[in-house]
């Protein structure tokens, strides 16, 4: 006990910090990027902002998938359940008189509520079986929506409550909503991971048994992540509806969404918030470059994901960080030891 107390007393003297000078600059840089992006509708054509809406939507989804897989170890092939439910939530809410842009944010709440009972069932499966189980659950939600004639059943429906808006204004509003959702998703993940729960999640990721023995409520931590992920994907689904203005069950609940999320996260780096950003940029670039070659871009991205998963499990950002220590979101702890204060030793999260 005495030794432990002495060690604790000593440890208390060593400053442990997350932020540093470089992270302060990246925070400013990220803030600037957001400001520039927010200003874009005033200077750019809607064709540009249209493409960026898709980009921001994918970024949101990939961030959520990355949180789920990277921090809770839950590989889901069924996140399209919440993309679809989010889109249909906005449609249903708009039928009830809720402004669709507000509906995009409410879709997050709707998906969280639906995700709670869903998690009770899905969490009975572990590892690989969780992946396919969530996929089946997404199929069930699709089949239930198909049976609802008011929501367009199997042939889909259009969102008409936005048609009163001026075209350019509507495009700009949609863009801002997409941007807000993406920023909130990244910021939310960042704050979540910096919180006490984030510490619990990191310990679960590194060693679940050890985390449990240290008193971490593993199930609760994973459930919170699952709910947050559902909320984010729900809002992304809402963005899908307000940007395309119509919804079809087969596209909204398509496993394609999970494929995109997985490819982006694997290529960018699972378990790094920055990974989703890097992965989305790569994904988007490949999609744009091969836009005229049918589905070859998917074959290429699939191949990149296979190679990434097996030969480069840390992804592009993970490799970059291993070499340079770069981080956009200060999540790592740094120990500034009194002796070598000039060269702080980075401690792996």
């Amino acid at each position, binding site marked *: 006990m005495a030794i432990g107390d002495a060690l604790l007393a000593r440890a208390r003297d060593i400053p442990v910090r997350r932020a540093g000078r470089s992270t302060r600059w990246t925070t400013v840089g990220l803030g600037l990027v957001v400001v520039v992006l927010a200003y874009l509708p005033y200077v750019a054509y809607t064709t540009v902002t249209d493409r960026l809406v898709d980009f921001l939507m994918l970024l949101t989804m990939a961030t959520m998938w990355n949180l789920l*897989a990277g921090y809770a*170890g839950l*590989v889901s*092939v069924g996140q399209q359940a919440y993309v679809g439910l989010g889109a249909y939530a906005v449609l249903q809410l708009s039928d009830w008189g809720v402004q669709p842009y507000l509906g995009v944010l409410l879709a997050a709440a709707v998906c969280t509520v639906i995700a709670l009972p869903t998690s009770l*069932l899905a969490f*009975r*499966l572990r*590892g*690989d*079986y969780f*992946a*396919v*189980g969530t*996929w*089946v*659950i997404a*199929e*069930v939600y699709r*089949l*239930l929506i*198909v*049976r609802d004639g008011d929501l367009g059943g199997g042939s889909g429906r259009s969102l008409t409550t936005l048609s009163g808006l001026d075209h350019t204004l509507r495009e700009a509003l949609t863009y801002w909503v997409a941007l807000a959702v993406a920023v909130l998703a990244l910021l939310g993940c960042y704050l979540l991971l910096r919180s006490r729960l984030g510490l619990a999640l990191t310990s679960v990721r590194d060693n679940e048994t050890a985390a449990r023995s240290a008193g971490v409520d593993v199930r609760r931590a994973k459930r919170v992540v699952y709910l947050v992920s559902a909320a984010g994907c729900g809002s992304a689904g809402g963005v899908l509806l307000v940007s395309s203005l119509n919804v079809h069950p087969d596209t909204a609940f398509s*496993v394609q969404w999970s*494929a995109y999320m*997985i*490819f982006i996260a*694997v290529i960018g780096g*699972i378990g790094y918030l920055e990974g989703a950003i890097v992965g989305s940029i790569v994904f988007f670039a490949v999609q744009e470059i091969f836009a005229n070659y*049918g*589905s*070859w871009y*998917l*074959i290429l*991205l*699939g*191949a990149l*994901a*296979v190679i*990434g*998963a*097996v*030969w480069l*499990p840390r992804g592009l950002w993970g490799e970059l960080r291993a070499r340079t220590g770069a981080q956009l979101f200060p999540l790592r702890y740094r120990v500034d030891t009194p002796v070598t204060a000039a060269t702080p030793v980075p401690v792996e999260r």
Partner: protein
Amino acid sequence: MAWVNAVVQGILLGGLYALFACGLSIVFGVMRIVNLAHGDFAVLAAFLAYSVADATGLGPFWAGVIVIPVLAAVGYLLQRVLLQRSLGVGPLATLLATFGLSVIIQNVLLQTYSADARALDIGRLASASLRISGQLSISYLALITFVLAVVVLVGLQLYLSRTRTGRMLRASSDDPEAARLVGADSRHLYGIATSIAFATVALAGVMFAMRSSFDPSIGPTRLIFAFEAVVIGGLGSLWGTLVGGMVLGLAQTVAGQFDPALTLLAGHVIFLAVLAFRPQGLIPARST
């Protein structure tokens, strides 16, 4: 009588599901991984059989006889080159890699064969059936598929319990380290397990292609049905997989008798119910 017909058809359909599922069951039993491209390899086999039949003029049965060993070889290679490596990387790697493979196969098939639906032409056998009464008739093809499924499952069970390789496979599954100590080459054994899985899924794909049309996008649905059969029956139990396939088939055809739109939903609901109330499956592996 329509209900008896639905039950009989459901059980026969279950045979096909079990045939799809047994490869998944074996790979999970031995390596504790799920191949998310399982269904797509079945579709790949169907397309290969289609091409072989088209190019050589052989009947679909003989085309199947050629395709099955090819897929078995593909399975062995895939295990040795990709999956074995992914096993060492971490628990997520295999899932992600096989999911990537699934998307690759679907889109390569789409580029090569287009999205048109195709079918393997088996001539008169497609419509020939054993007429029992006015409303109850059993298609020979469905019966052949069911018998094949039972033969494959019995064969696999005997292989795993009676032969030297089968015993080593089970040993590797129970404790890879200990199995290695007594001379089992786990990498080769895993390759064999995967090649068996691929042979059975190729057989399932070819049988499926004889009874209904197929296109590059149907793989994931096959995977889901196979997966449901495995979980309903109980993880890692081959008899369970047969029972699981039949329960799934029954749920689908009986619900379809009420309302054709309910067919898929009923299967999924049975699966979720088993998950909620009997997560170990109907016939768990260790209790038998």
